[in-house]
């Protein structure tokens, strides 16, 4: 399977990563190799195999519905780039 420059540019936009033309060429090769590896896996016959949601053969433990957390806003906001009136601030997003 091959990956096009357009695919790489789209994935970069979705992941909010800036890549220049040179990097795209390198990524085209690297990601192409990875996809080839996936193709090899795809060749295996999985007809009678149940799809796997998690590599561990275990079941999720659940937690009782009890409040266990206390307010630690001051500690968290001490390491935030910007806060105001208890809010975390981020560059403005307009819908």
């Amino acid at each position, binding site marked *: 399977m091959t990956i096009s420059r357009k695919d790489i540019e*789209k994935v970069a936009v*979705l992941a*909010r990563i800036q890549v220049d033309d040179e990097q795209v060429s390198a990524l085209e090769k690297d990601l192409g190799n990875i996809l080839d590896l996936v193709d090899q896996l795809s060749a295996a016959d999985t007809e009678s195999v149940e799809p796997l*949601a*998690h590599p*561990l053969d*275990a*079941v*999720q*433990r*659940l*937690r*009782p*519905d*009890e*409040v*266990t*957390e206390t*307010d*630690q*806003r001051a500690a*968290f*906001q001490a390491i935030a780039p*910007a806060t*105001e*009136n*208890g*809010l*975390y*601030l*981020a*560059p*403005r*997003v*307009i*819908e």
Partner: protein
Amino acid sequence: MQWDIVIGLEIHVQLATRTKIFSGSSTAYGAEPNTQANAVDLAMPGTLPVPNEQAFRYAVMFGLAVNAEIERRSVFERKNYFYPDLPKGYQTTQLARPIVGPGYVDIELGNGESKRVRIHHAHLEEDAGKSLHEAIHDSMGHGMTGVDLNRAGTPLIEVVTEPDMNNAEEAVAFAKKLHGIVTSLGICDGDMSQGSMRFDVNISLKPRGSDTLGTRTETKNLNSFRFMEQAIAHEVERQMDILEDGGTITQETRLYNGDRDESRSMRTKEEANDYRYFPCPDLLPVVLDDAFIEEARNSLPELPDTRKARFMDQYGLNDYDAGLLAGDSKLAALFEETVLHGKDAKLSANWILGEFSARLNADEKSVAQAPVDGKQLGNLVARIADNTISSAGAKKVFEALWAGDNGDVDAIIDAKGLKQVSDTGELEKMVDEVLSGMPDQVAQYQNEEDPKKRKKMLGGFMGPLMKASKGQGNPKLFNEILARKLDG
């Protein structure tokens, strides 16, 4: 051209758990910003989610209440997108294996018919935080978005229907029915003004009778039944205008502004996010055993349909009144409390659906916020039923109760002097006095042959009688005595 309207709904229901779906932070509404957002909710490195058992129990209860299959092996996936109120950069949700499979809900329509609306599935997921865009600036004066993550991680079930509704009435009836179900189950507080239930409406039009669905739009985040009804009317008209002008509908997400009755495009399909779902490696599959599901089944409370049938049977209510009272669990509880104290079920129903509901609407209050409770209403009903007060007097008592000056019905009746005189001897004396002072009217009445006109003329004596009794004479008894004396 005649058009068929096709509507499907997606409903986000906030589950009334004490804590978040993947962390032990409180979900209580109205706390100071970010005081209920812990390391897991903030997506701090090294943290891991641990799912809340109660969220699964609630989702299973919902599934059983809408006649759905329960998926015993639930898998969580990551839905990836960037937004400041989503700290992890993905929403943990379900896609391939939602916990609630296909089910259905029957709705009642205004014409007395019922209709089945199929539920495609319902899945568990986490809510995002809240973004505030107003009046926040950094030190350079650049506009900033403020983020409150208290809501981030609140458990939701997203209910997705099949496109089985064909007009706003059906969509609203379904929404109200679903509201009645989740509040009766106690899995959601149902407070739409606080965003506890939010509706997305998918609408398309097709030429009448056609089998091919038209292009649909999705109007998002409607948080009241009234806005939902308006938004549907608005969108149907917008699409009809475009189609009748020979245009085509763009598949897009729209936002509706209920205060202005306007909508605008939020994003089109081309711009639609590619969410790159994949199974969440932080969470193992959740497996629910038969015992868990049976326990949930046994804990199911009475649901609106069953309650409606019981109200008709036990209290002799008609279909319409029973449906209204039974549809909302809080209203139903208030009704039963009222009957407990007031005895007269029909009168109780009339007061709750009449005066009480009108005041709720006028003051934009929910049943839980009403200043009058079932015991007070019941005592009021009892005093109307035993003729202590007239219905006009009862309205005055109700106003006093609502204003909250005094909570005791009998004390209000005494204080306001609203007690009716029902002593027939005393009333008879008043009638004699009033009639002797109105000989002309009495003669006129007795010379009138048309019974309809006579009845009307009888009313002419009521004013002076009520005056003579200082408004406290029992009008029903006055009427009886008048008729006896004048006709006899």
